[in-house]
């Protein structure tokens, strides 16, 4: 396989996170020859989404802190005398403190297989090439997930043996973690186990809400669990880019349906659009007016400087207190609409944030946010697909040993991959996590605390079960970060029926569990058995069926100069940031692209496939080229293969 890769490209992109994928798409679109590699076996890096079993594997991988001692130094001989080497990381160190908990009957899941699961992928670094060659399908499961989804009901017999062992292994792992958990004792799980064994199907038929762990495992492919939890502002940069570049056709979106607030121990819906305010039953008439009046003012606050001039030096929270708003309205605006800190957000910043929220309202619905169906992990893949359509070459599970730098010019000339192949290029995009400690020794990273829960009910039950909600939980102690909670329903295609997938995110102060568990305890019911004792009030809360906490490195906003001895033609992309939107990644991608190709347009709309006239010969040669290395490219859909390689195609329209 390695021999099939051309030895020369224009741009080599290492890492398939969102900014890298956007850059790859932009470069391919502007006619560059792009090689896009990722050492992982899935797309997206820390932006990826996983099925349940996929996430369990990911957890396992990140809990094993063993170093891979693959000290094969064969590639050294490829380095010329006037060249030096910048080694890249072989092990991702961006995820820490992974702690998974299962509440209840996980033992019953021991022999349960995930329906339609693909065999577990060989651990990276093992005989990867053969594995790929044998089964090209499994190389990029997320991208192919559409196919997999279609057939997910039918278990693949060949695959199931492997999967079972995977689950078993993971269970033991999870059990170990559970010893530290106060909520699960062995007797309890035994009790649940008995129930589940008696008639698991009947239980689910009678009480559809009661979901067993075994069901989660069996329906694992219904889950698309995001590592980063983000929403798209409907007038954010990412939406603009998706539309402009026509990448939007690869994805489907669902509007977030409601904005929630957590106030005085209760979850409430925040009326934020005009229709919401009109329909709200919790606001008095006067409150409605005051809220609308304030929001209208925020929309064009710059036109009324006299209204906030005197408060320029105070915080937004102080400013709100002067605006004749009731405490509940102040809470809604501060935490759920502006979503800013109570203590250190200035009036103008708060007004800006509020305006951004309001401007996004109504474009696609009554909330400002969109969520991509099948998870946030779809978005980088969409851009990869765009890149592939324009001739980009993809290699997953393809790690890069080092960057080769010309001593004289100080420019990077090539990479050497794990097969020892030397691939030269003009530009190199590397995701932060691939950079070795020596390069990053002066970089100070922040951390993001994340939690993912699978729950059985919504935090705020309404007539409709299918709600996509975003909830901001303000900190207990002033100055701490607020926790952003996004609850997804099954119609977002991220979790199985009758469950909800809840993402919690905040900038870290401690480990993820320390940061987030207090919020989880406020909103959810953790102990399955305690409900008999505590009865009513606790019953209102949704139960957590399964949970994982982890810290993720936040490499955003790092000055390029903090990385030591980086060649000028190597650009660093950061991992996900802790903000709700994706503007940071898009901005970074555009900036890097413009630095590399100042004269090229960034992701212009692709030509209409109908307007392309194919040159017979070129088409034929392209096709043959394709058949030579099918495993290096993502499976194109028929429609794409027709327009594939259009860089080599005469792009004049018919008229």
């Amino acid at each position, binding site marked *: 396989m390695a021999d099939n890769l051309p030895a020369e490209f224009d741009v080599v992109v290492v890492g398939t996170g969102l900014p890298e994928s956007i850059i790859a798409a932009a470069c391919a679109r502007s006619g560059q020859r792009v090689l896009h590699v990722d050492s992982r076996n899935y797309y997206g890096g820390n932006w990826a989404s996983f099925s349940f079993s996929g996430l369990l594997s990911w957890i396992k991988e990140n809990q094993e802190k063993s170093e891979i001692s693959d000290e094969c130094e064969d590639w050294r001989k490829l380095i010329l005398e006037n060249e030096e080497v910048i080694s890249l990381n072989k092990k991702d160190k961006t995820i820490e403190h992974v702690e998974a908990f299962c509440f209840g009957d996980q033992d019953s899941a021991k022999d349960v297989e995930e329906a339609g699961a693909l065999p577990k992928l060989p651990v990276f670094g093992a005989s990867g090439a053969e594995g790929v060659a044998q089964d090209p399908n499994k190389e990029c499961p997320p991208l192919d997930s559409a196919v997999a989804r279609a057939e997910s009901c039918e278990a693949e017999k060949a695959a199931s043996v492997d999967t079972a062992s995977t689950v078993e292994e993971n269970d033991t792992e999870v059990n170990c973690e559970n010893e530290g958990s106060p909520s699960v004792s062995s007797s309890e799980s035994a009790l649940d186990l008995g129930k589940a064994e008696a008639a698991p199907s009947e239980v689910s038929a009678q009480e559809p809400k009661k979901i067993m762990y075994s069901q989660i495992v069996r329906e694992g492919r219904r889950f698309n669990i995001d590592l980063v939890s983000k929403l798209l502002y409907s007038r954010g940069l990412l939406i603009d880019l998706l539309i402009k570049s026509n990448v939007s056709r690869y994805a489907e979106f669902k509007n977030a349906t409601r904005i929630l607030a957590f106030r005085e121990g209760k979850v409430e819906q925040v009326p934020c659009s*005009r*229709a919401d*305010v*009109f*329909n709200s039953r919790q606001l008095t*008439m*006067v409150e*409605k007016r005051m809220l*609308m009046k304030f929001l209208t003012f925020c929309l064009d606050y710059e036109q009324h400087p006299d209204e906030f001039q005197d408060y320029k030096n105070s915080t937004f929270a102080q400013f709100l207190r002067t605006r004749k708003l009731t405490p509940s309205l102040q809470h809604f605006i501060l935490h759920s609409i502006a979503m800013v800190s109570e203590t250190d957000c200035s009036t103008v910043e708060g007004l800006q944030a509020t305006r951004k929220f309001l401007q996004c309202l109504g474009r696609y619905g009554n909330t400002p946010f969109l969520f991509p169906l099948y998870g946030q992990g779809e978005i980088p893949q969409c851009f990869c697909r765009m890149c592939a359509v324009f001739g980009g070459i993809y290699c997953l599970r393809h790690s890069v040993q080092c960057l080769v730098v010309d001593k004289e010019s100080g420019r990077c000339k090539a990479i050497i991959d794990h097969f020892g192949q030397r691939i030269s290029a003009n530009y190199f995009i590397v995701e932060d996590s691939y950079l070795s400690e020596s390069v990053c020794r002066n970089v100070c990273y922040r951390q993001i605390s994340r939690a993912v829960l699978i729950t059985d009910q919504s935090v705020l039950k309404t007539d409709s079960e299918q709600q996509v909600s975003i909830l901001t939980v303000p900190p207990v102690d002033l100055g701490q970060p607020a926790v952003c909670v996004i609850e997804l329903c099954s119609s977002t295609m991220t979790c199985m029926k009758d469950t909800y997938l809840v993402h919690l995110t905040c900038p870290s102060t401690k480990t993820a569990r320390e940061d987030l568990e207090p919020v989880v305890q406020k909103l959810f019911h953790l102990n399955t058995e305690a409900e008999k004792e505590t009865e009513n009030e606790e019953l209102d809360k949704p139960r957590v069926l399964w949970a994982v906490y982890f810290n993720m490195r936040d490499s955003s906003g790092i000055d390029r100069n903090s990385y030591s001895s980086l060649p000028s033609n190597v650009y660093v992309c950061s991992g996900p940031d802790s903000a709700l939107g994706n503007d940071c990644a898009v901005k970074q991608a555009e900036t890097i692209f413009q630095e590399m190709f100042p004269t090229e347009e960034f992701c212009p709309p692709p030509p209409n496939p109908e307007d392309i006239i194919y040159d017979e010969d070129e088409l034929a040669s392209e096709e043959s080229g394709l058949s030579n290395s099918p495993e290096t490219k993502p499976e194109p859909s028929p429609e794409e293969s027709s327009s594939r390689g259009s860089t080599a195609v005469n792009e004049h329209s018919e008229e």
Partner: protein
Amino acid sequence: MATLIDKRGRGELDAEVVELTGAVLAANPDVGTCWNLRRRALELLGGDWVPGELAFVGGCLGVNPKSYGAWHHRRWVLRHAPPDPAAQRAFCARLLEADPRNFHAWEHRRAEAGAGAEAELAFTAQLLARDFSNFSAWHHRGRLLAEGPLPPERLREELELVQNAVFTDPQDQSAWVYLRCLLARATPPPRLLSLHADLEDGTLAAAFSRPVVVSPGSLEASLDDCPLPGPWRPADGRPRPSCFWLCPLPPGLATPPARLRVAWQRGPAHFVTLRPGETEAWWQEPIEARELIWPEVGVSDPAVLSELAQACRELLELEPRSRGCLLTLALLLGALGPRAHGEELRRCLRCLQEADPLRRGFVADLASRAEVALELLREGAGLGELRLQGKALTSLPLLERAALAARLELAGNELGALPPGLGGLRRLQVLDVSRNRVRSLRGLPPLPRLEELRLDGNPISHASDLAPLAACPRLARLRLAGTPLAAAPEAAAQLDKLLPHVAVTLA
């Protein structure tokens, strides 16, 4: 298209016409000729073309959802089909989903596809929840509520809904209009307000609460049980509904006492008795304060109105310039009784005038109405005189309530003309219109008892503009000081010729 015209000329209305019109209309559903041809062809064609045709029109409405031709055609097709309200409802709902303000779809829904009133109310509520700036949805809702005053429960629900809307966005007029419609659901039927019998010019005058047309038999009048032959004519002399109607008394009625009986459309009878030695007699209903400013209001419970007024005041505190709110509050105060809220009413209207410069005239007329109403309600006013000097009046409403006034002080206002309704004021003796903007008296009906008319300071420039005064038999004094006419050299001579018996003051 040329082929079509050809075929029409040859009278060939066959399947090809249907096909050709289909092609044209699918591209542009607004070609009326094609729809007509298509209809004629279809009628001749026979067979069951209804379902196909419905689908076709549906497609055309997809191209232009507001095509009159296409909607008309749909109606026509439906006349040939068994009614299926559910399908029609679904169709309208689909179009309204795309454009909740598509008035064709609403109209169609009303005509062809009405579900039960409750279901329809729920449907409108659903669309309003999405966006309440929707006149059509409010209108549909208003139409669904039965005529007349609403049951208190329903009224409360509706008021809450509409108040939600106005508090959410007071700038949106649709909710305010609905709110006012909700309250103004029971205009009282016209009735007799006053009667005046005058032996001098032998006329019986009747004033009504609203303009009416008196057709033979609708207004029964009899003198000592002997029916008056009539005919009734409008006092302003114009053939249209009027508040004032006159009927000649039989000549030779010189022997009082005489008793006149008048009844409007079999309503209660009112009596006027002429006593010996008197030349006139009258009857008048006491003034109904609630009817003066907003007579249409159908809500009889003052508590509901006060509550609403209070809500408006709260809203005004937050939004002092909301015109919908100001207007509604003014009307509410009027309905609650102008006297008790006189000052607030005036303040309200002043704010409204500033807040809504585009409707300055409308507001000025409303303010005039309020001023006249307040004057009518003043103790002792009405019968004797109305003092309305310097009230910035732009119009002179409510004259029917002042039918018996003898003196009308209108100096220093902004009246541009004297309303023809003045002809109904049969007892008017002194009329002071000094310092107004009256240019001409054309159209003024004869005023039988007018003795003095002051027109000082009005922009009257020609003697001919005063011609109607020649028909006022008792006119003795006319003041024209400060008018352009007074400055004209030949004015005195002209006036002497026009009004030989009138003492004209020109300076």
